[in-house]
């Protein structure tokens, strides 16, 4: 079915209705939300959104899987990823060989995910967080070692994870993401058992 054209007009009101009904309607809606605020705010440092697995956040390299094909660097629209030549000892041939690994510069990265999608061996993956800030631009140019580590995320330490779900009446509604919390609590308990009583104050 192709689209249809529907002819419409600005809604018209008689002068009296314009003054009274309009004002009262606006005030009523305002008062309704004043007394029943539909607050969707994320209290950020105390809560953070547990992003889905598919979120295109910071990128991590799995060095073992990399086959030095340079696809990621070639497809990068911002030239944020480049190939760094590294001498690697080859066990079979028993000699040093030059191999290329990608390094990334977050000063330029636009998080389009093309590098991850084009990698033929899945040697790159996204971590689902994206809220790290830096005081220094040089910190954002990662070395090969840093590129293999997942960047440290502060939000885990400061807040609890929440998830937003859709609601017909309220739009987005947030709830604490219990699974994640339980997982984390278990981890903490384990840590405490291992490390003993001394660390209790810190948590």
């Amino acid at each position, binding site marked *: 079915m192709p689209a249809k054209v529907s002819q419409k007009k600005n809604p018209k009101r008689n002068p009296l209705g314009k003054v009274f009904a309009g004002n009262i309607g*606006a005030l009523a*809606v*305002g008062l309704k*939300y*004043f007394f029943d*605020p*539909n*607050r*969707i705010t994320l*209290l950020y440092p105390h809560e953070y959104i547990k992003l889905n697995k598919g979120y295109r956040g910071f990128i991590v390299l799995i060095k073992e899987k990399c086959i030095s094909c340079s696809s990621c660097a070639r497809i990068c629209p911002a030239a944020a990823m480049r190939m760094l030549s590294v001498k690697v000892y080859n066990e079979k041939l028993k000699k040093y060989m030059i191999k290329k690994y990608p390094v990334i510069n977050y000063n330029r990265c636009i998080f389009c995910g093309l590098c991850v999608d084009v990698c033929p061996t899945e040697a790159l993956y996204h971590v689902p967080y994206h809220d790290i800030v830096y005081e220094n631009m040089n910190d954002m140019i990662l070395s090969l070692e840093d590129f293999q580590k997942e960047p440290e995320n502060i939000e885990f330490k400061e807040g609890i994870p929440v998830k937003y779900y859709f609601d017909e009446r309220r739009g987005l509604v947030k709830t604490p993401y219990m699974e994640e919390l339980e997982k984390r609590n278990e981890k903490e308990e384990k840590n405490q058992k291992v490390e003993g009583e001394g660390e209790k104050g810190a948590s």
Partner: protein
Amino acid sequence: MNPCYYACYIVYKVIVYDIIFYPPVYQFLIIPGLITAIIIAIFIIWFERKAAAYVQMRYGPWEIAPKIGGATQLLADLTRYAMQEIITPQTVDTLQYLLAPIVMVVLALLPLEAVPLTSVKPYFPIPSGYSLLVAVAFTTLSPLFITMMGWASNNKFSITGSVRESFMITSYELISVLGLLTAAAMTRSYDLVKIVNLQMSGKWLGLINPIALFVVFIAVLMSTSGFPFEIPESESELVAGPFTEYSGLLYGLNMGGAYIRRWVFSILITLVFLGGWAPYRPTPGVITGYLIPSLIVSLKAVVIMGIMSFLRSVYGRYRLDQALGIAWEILIPLALLAFGIGLAEAYFGII
């Protein structure tokens, strides 16, 4: 006795009892003057932001003091303003530029000199049979200095803003004067004490003559550039209107000035239309004669300010010619109508 001690005692006594507790000074500086006005402004700006945040599905100022909903937010803002650099651009008229905000704030508080907050005579600031007239006359002074600020700033936006402000002054002044003087016609008196005393029986003038109250309410919104009449400093075309060039403490004064004016007007409205300290009857004594009635008046005034602040979250702003049209074509006939109704009610002895 040590003469030095004696001298100190006398000085202390003079300063405390004869100067600070001299009603005009006390009223100007403490209740309901400067200090109370600042506290009220802090509260009401916080409330304005919070109320807007409630309507707008969010929290508003919060992190600064989570337990009390961020109520200390404005303290931080004021401290920041007070400590920031005060920039005096090269092109401004320096003396006017620096003096205008200060004079504006001082003059904004001047009407309080004529406003009695109790019916007990020793606590009147200036006992006068024409206190309503004097107060109304004083309210018209401070807006002139807003116009002056814009002129002294020597900035196109500022000047346009101050021209708009002067347009607004000429239109709202007549309305508020007409509206407030309706009370005089109804009560056959210019004396605020008498006007309040007549309302003690529960017949508040605002209830008897709601049109006059409505007209004055709108006129106050216009005069203090509250929404939907926030025209002189409408940000989407005039940046900050007359205040565009002001920074630091001077801007803090400006920001407070509008709220102080609104506060003074709210007290006037309370006294004239909402029964002042009714239903409480003051008796001699500082607490029962002055503090309790002024507290009642302040509470009522705060409610009025709260309603004015709430309008921000519902309305946008009118165009200048539309606002002036509302003033001249709708509100002035309404004010005249209210005046007529007041006269009729007075004639038939309803009041």
